[in-house]
């Protein structure tokens, strides 16, 4: 590998890490959204029961 390719690799690794972090956060956000919807459903069920 040439020196320029190593530089591209180093900057590429940083970019991949940031993108990976964004993907993990997006997955977490979807899970939180699902859980919030479940809880809202549970609360609505309780409200209509009693």
């Amino acid at each position, binding site marked *: 590998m040439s020196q320029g390719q*190593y530089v591209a690799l180093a*900057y590429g690794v940083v970019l991949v890490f940031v993108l990976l972090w964004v993907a993990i*956060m997006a997955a977490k*956000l979807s899970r*939180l959204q699902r859980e919030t919807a479940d809880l809202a459903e549970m*609360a609505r069920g309780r409200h209509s029961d009693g």
Partner: protein
Amino acid sequence: MSSRNSLPLLAFAAAGLLGLAVVLALLVAPEDANQGVSQRIFYFHVPIALTAYACFGLGAWKALRLLWVGGERRDLESYTWIHQGTIFGALTLITGSIWAKASWGVWWNWSSNQLVLFLVLFLFYCAYFMLRFSVDEGARRERICAVYALFGVALIPVSFLAIRLASDFIHPTVFTRAGPQMTRTMFMAFLVSWAAITLLAYVMYRVELVGKRTDSNLRELREALS
């Protein structure tokens, strides 16, 4: 402006600064006379390493505050800073390793104190997560994790000074008592990169903290409703 509203603005500022840092580091800064083009890794590697130290330091500071005045939120803040520290620590090791291979022909050197000490610091904080997830949630876990985070902070000055005190010369010392050993343009590119990486780490910290707090609140809500 409230702190909630400032987060998207900070995220845009971090993205803009990162873009500017890449342009300055790769296109504007002059090529180093000794190392050639591989020296351009320096503009991201060093700010990432400094940010990792700062994240571990802030994690320890929050841990100290937790032990001092208490508060569940400080446990979450300390945990989030340490999480950020391990992300930037991993990036420090990877970018440093690539730089070493490009400049000196080796990926790693076990006889280099500063490299090994940074690895020890990184692994120490990786073990923090094993400790955290092996103890039941509650005040006991908060205290144990806080004490562990505080112990780790002692490694930061050792790791930082090792770069200056090391007897081998594989790891360069750019900042000396005489000031930065680089041109003004190079130093400007370094400062912009440092600001960009620091801001990125802060934005990531804030986003993760919001996620962890929401997670914790939802768990409590689920327990209350069930």
